[in-house]
C-alpha cells in the first residue's frame, strides 16, 4: 500500500536534490566580484531613494479585491459554456442558473459602485 507511493518519494527527493544541488554548485563554483553598485538595492535601475516601507493607499487593496472577484466570475462562465449546449436540450434551467449568478454579481457591482470604490480623487 505505502509502497505505491515510493515513486512520489523519489520525485520529492529528485526535486529537492536538484534545487539544493543547483544552488550549492553555483555557491561553490561561481566567481564572486563585489562592487558598490552591485551591492546596492535594485530598483529598476534607478538609484534607490527613501525608505522601502511606505504606506500604500487602501484603494489599491479594494481594486485588487474587486478584480479578483470579477476575474473568478469569468472563470465560472467557462465550464458553464462548455456544457451549455448539452444541458440546454433538457430545458432552460441552466440558462436561469447563470442569469441568477450574474444578477448576484451585478448587485455586488452596483453596491461597490455606489459605495465609491471606483472614485479616485
Amino acid at each position, binding site marked *: 500500500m505505502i509502497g505505491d507511493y515510493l515513486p512520489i518519494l523519489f520525485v520529492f527527493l529528485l526535486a529537492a536534490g536538484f534545487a539544493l544541488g543547483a544552488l550549492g554548485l553555483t555557491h561553490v563554483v561561481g566567481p564572486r566580484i563585489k562592487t558598490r553598485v552591485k551591492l546596492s538595492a535594485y530598483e529598476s535601475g534607478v538609484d534607490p531613494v527613501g525608505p522601502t516601507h511606505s504606506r500604500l493607499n487602501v484603494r489599491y487593496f479594494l481594486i485588487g479585491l474587486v478584480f479578483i472577484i470579477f476575474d473568478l466570475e469569468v472563470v465560472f462562465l467557462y465550464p458553464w459554456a462548455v456544457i451549455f449546449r448539452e444541458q440546454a436540450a433538457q430545458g432552460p434551467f441552466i440558462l436561469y442558473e447563470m442569469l441568477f449568478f450574474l444578477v448576484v454579481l451585478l*448587485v455586488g457591482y*452596483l453596491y461597490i459602485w*455606489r459605495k465609491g470604490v471606483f472614485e479616485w480623487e
Partner: protein
Amino acid sequence: MGSADILSTLPELVLIATALLLLVMESAAEPHRELLAATALGGLAIALVTALGYGADGLYYSGMLQVDPYARFVSALALVLAALAIMVAVPYLRRTLEERGEYYSLMLFATVGMLLMVKAQDLTMVFLGLELLSIPLYVLAGFYRHRSSSNEAGLKYLLLGAFAAGFFLFGIALLYGSTGTTSYSGMAQAINSGTELSRVLTLAGFGLLLVGFAFKVALAPFHMYAPDVYEGAPTSMSAFLSTGPKLAGFATLLKLIAVVFAGTMVHWWTAIWILAALTMTVGNLAALRQDSLKRMLAYSSVAHAGYLALAILVTNYDSGFAMLFYLTVYVLTTLAAFGIVSLLEEGEESAMPGVEACKGLARRNPWLAAAFTLALLSLAGFPPTAGFLGKFFLFNATLDAGYLWLVILAVLNSLVSVYYYLRPVVAMYMQPGKNTSALPIPRMLIPALLALAVVALGAGFIPAPLVHATASAISAIL
C-alpha cells in the same frame, strides 16, 4: 434539474434575494435605514414558512442536497435564531449609530450557509455552506471598524478560521482519495463494504474534518479564539457567533457520523472522549475566573460545546435526540443572555460590562433581572428549567452507552459552573448598584426574552411538544 430542485431550496433563495435587496437598499442615494431590519425579518419569515411547508422530502440537485425532517427542524431553528439575533441587534446598532444594511445582509448570507450545511448530502456542499456561514461572520465580528477590539476579533477569527478551513478541505481531499467520492451515500457504501482504498486514509480524513468542526463549534483545544472573538465582537454579534456556528456545526457533524462514519467511529472514541472531557473542564474552569460578562458567557459556550460533544461520542437515537433538545434550549437561552448583556453596556465606559454592571438590576428592572436569572439558571441546568432536562437527556444517553466516568466528570463540571452562573444573579439581587434609574428595554428585545421564557420555562414544565418535535426530527437520520 428543474422546478422541484428550485422549490427544495426556496428558503435559501428567498434569503439570498432578501440579502441582495438589503444591499440595494443600502446603496440607494438616501437609504431608508429604518426599513432594513423589517425587510430582513420579512425575508426570514417567508423562508421559515417555506422551510417548514414547501417541497417534498428527498434528494435534490443531483443528490447534493437532501430535504428530510431533520434538515427541516434544524433549518427552522436556524431561521428563528437568525430572526431573534437580528431583533437583538437592532436596538444595539441604533444606539451605537452603526445600523447599516450590510449587517443584516451578511446575517442572512450566514443563515443560508447554515441551511445548506445541514441539508448537504455531499462534502463539497458542506464546505460551501461552512464557508458561506463563516465568511460573513468574520466580517460581522469586525463590524465596528472604529473599535480596536472589534478589529482584533475580526482578524483573529478570519486568520484562525481560514486555517481551520484548510484542515477541513484537506480532510475532504483524503476522503475523496480513499473512497473516490465526496457524496455521503457513496462514502458510506465504500466504507461499509470495505472497498475504500485504505482504512488509514479514511480515518485520517475524518480526523481532519473533526478538527475543522471542532474549531467551528469551539471544542478545546481548538477553542482559543472563542473568548477573544466573542468579547471583541459587537455584543449583538457575539449572541449569534456563540450559537449559530454551534447549531450548524453539531447538527452537520452528527448527521455526517450517523450516515457515513458510524462504522469507523470505534477508532475515534478515545479522541472524542478526550475532546469532550477537556472542553467542558477547560471551559468551566476558565469561566470561573472571568469578570467580563461576555467572556464568562464565551467560556460557558465552550463548556456547553463539551457537553454536546457527548452526543457526538455516542451517536445513537437517544443521544441524537438529546443533542437536538439541548441545542434548541442552549441557542435560545444564550442568545437571550447576550441580548441582555448588550443592554447592560449602556452607560458603561468600556463597552465590556463586568459582573458589577449587574449590581442592583433587580431594583432597576425587575423583569429584566428575572429573565437574566432564568437564562443563567437554564444554562447551569437547574430544575425545573429546560436546561436541566437537556442535561438529563444528554447525560442519561451517555450513561446508557457505558461512559460512566465521562458522565461523572460532566456532572462535576455542571456543579462547578453553578458558581459563575450565580455570580451575576447574586449581584443583581443582593448588591446595591450605583445607578438606580430603570434601563429602557427596547421593544425589539421582547421577542428574544419571550422565546427564552417559552423554551427555558415552557419546555421545562411541559417538555412534550419539544420532545416530540426533536424525536421525530432525529428519527430521520438515526
